[in-house]
């Protein structure tokens, strides 16, 4: 018999974000597979208690809240104190939370404090015959393992986008307030938008558009056309609302002081030392499709590429379609058609 605590932060507007509702879905799946287990909702944030009714019909037996303006600030000390207090108050064996930047920064530390263990970037959970197992990837998405753990509490951080978010009717609930230390030597100052002021990373976009170093290389006329490349890409992003990814080579050119697309940063980098975004479709342009890049495409289902080289990596079973063509000409036409 396991007590499953689902941990969530309350957003600044008082709602529970999509990742939190995905974590609730994961917790419910575990509870359904474990006879006799019970679900507890643990909320943290400025108005945590007031948000609890949103989860009234999720099947929880208890609602706990660590509340106060100091818990609205995203920082380790107070987030860890809140999570620890909630896990202790629930006597939780399993603690499930979304892998948001706040929980990802904190919950391994809390697991350590409580003598437990943690698994992060979990992409699936399975519970049957009294046992829980989770799936996660190792070596930057090169291999997937299914694992069980004997230790408790076991903290499980589920990656956003892996579960259908839970939705249900709100209703009255009895909220138990839990005390936690709100002191910290750190204060949150502000969020910063990308330097260019151009929002290019859109996790919810249908399409990932990847730009490779080819956009800045000498073209058949013997010249580079970086400005034109920037204009074509930005025009495409604005019209298609795609999220912008990049190869490492392209972003590195920027930090080495070469002329590069001004709206790109390391945050856009996809791959081994970049991100592994989730989008239904991906289009790679002027990118060679080398393995350290393509491991970042693990969760992109449909893949197409435009490259001058018919033997580039994408042709080796990494893309569904490779268009052997000049990306400058193709993207100019695409932009035109998108109007």
């Amino acid at each position, binding site marked *: 018999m396991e007590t499953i605590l689902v941990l969530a932060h309350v957003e600044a507007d008082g709602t529970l974000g999509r990742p939190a509702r995905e974590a609730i879905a994961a917790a419910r799946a575990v509870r359904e597979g474990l006879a006799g287990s019970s679900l507890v909702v643990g909320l943290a944030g400025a108005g945590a208690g007031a948000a609890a009714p949103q989860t009234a019909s999720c099947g929880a037996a208890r609602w706990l809240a660590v509340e106060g303006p100091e818990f609205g600030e*995203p*920082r380790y*000390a107070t987030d860890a104190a809140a999570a620890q207090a909630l896990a202790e108050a629930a006597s939780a064996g399993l603690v499930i939370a979304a892998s*948001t*930047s706040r929980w*990802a920064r*904190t919950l*391994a530390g809390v*697991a*350590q*404090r409580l003598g437990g*263990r*943690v*698994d*992060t970037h979990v992409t699936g959970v399975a519970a049957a015959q009294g046992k829980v197992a989770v799936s996660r*990837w*190792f*070596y*930057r998405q*090169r*291999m*997937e*393992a*299914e694992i069980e*753990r004997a*230790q408790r509490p076991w903290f499980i951080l589920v990656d956003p986008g892996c579960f259908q978010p839970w939705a249900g009717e709100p209703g009255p609930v009895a909220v138990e307030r839990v005390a936690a230390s709100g002191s*910290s030597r*750190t204060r*949150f*100052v*502000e*969020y*910063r938008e990308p330097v260019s002021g151009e929002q290019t990373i859109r*996790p919810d976009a249908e399409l990932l558009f990847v730009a490779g170093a080819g956009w800045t290389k000498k073209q058949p006329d013997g010249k580079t056309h970086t400005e034109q490349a920037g204009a074509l890409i930005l025009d495409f992003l604005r019209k298609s609302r795609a999220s912008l990814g990049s190869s490492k080579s392209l972003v590195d050119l920027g*930090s080495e002081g070469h002329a590069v697309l001004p709206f790109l*940063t*390391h945050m856009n*980098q996809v791959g081994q*030392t970049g991100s592994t975004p989730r989008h*239904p479709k991906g*289009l790679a342009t002027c990118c060679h499709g080398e393995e350290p890049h393509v491991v970042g495409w693990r969760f992109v289902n*449909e*893949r*197409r590429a435009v490259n001058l080289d018919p033997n580039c990596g*994408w*042709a080796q*079973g*990494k893309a*569904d*379609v*490779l*268009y*052997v*063509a000049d990306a400058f000409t*193709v*993207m*100019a*036409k*695409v932009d*035109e058609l998108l109007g």
Partner: protein
Amino acid sequence: MQSFHIVVCGSIVPDPLQTLEPVVNSPVPSLKNEMMLPAVLDPWAAHALYEAANLARQRPGSKVWLVSLGPKAKLQQVMMTVAQKAPFELVALDGPSGGFTDASETAAALAEAIQGIAGLDRSRLLLFGGWESASRGAGATMQMTGERLGITDQFQGVDELEVTESGALRILERVEGGRHQLSECEGPPVVLGWATGNLPEPPNNPQVGMANMRMVMPALQRAKPAKAGADGLTYRSVKVPSQRRETRVVKDVPAEEIARELVAWIRNG
């Protein structure tokens, strides 16, 4: 001017250009030919090391240690290159560096090694590492190591650290949607799990290499065996997905036609 004691935790991982295959014939899985695969310093930890060296250079009186848990022979190979990049003192632990060991056990070994560093001033301590490894990729080890050392100001996905005139630390961390979060901490001790930062990889500097190697070889000889396994963790399966697709190669087709096909695909799937 304030100076720091910067401890960088960084291990080694297989070169990302290598093909990796899991072997599941013991409780803790491993990689096929793991000891033969060429290794590199874990990339995000490498960024942490470059940032540490850069900060130490600007703050006279600062010192950098690199604490590394890995098979001694492989550590030695990797250190031949890493030692040329930045001045540091190596604290080596001889044990497994594979991704299938548990973060909590690695953290226990690292924390113990850090506690054993002679002359380390905890009131000036900046504990650096990569925010995630290229092996386990969990982002858990640094948090757990920090907790074991009682450090409760922790930051992950760090791209920038600035020390203000009053000695406060201003830190930029990656958060959702391509944004950064700016926080200010009163001062050390802190844990910083670095993302890419802002510095390019430093060129090899043979003089730095010579100076480092005088310390690196004895450190490797002194390396204590460290147990880092995966107690209580059961691997039901480890699989490499079948990732090969049937690629349709479209050649000698006018750009206009390709563009039309792409737009149709973007619009309706």
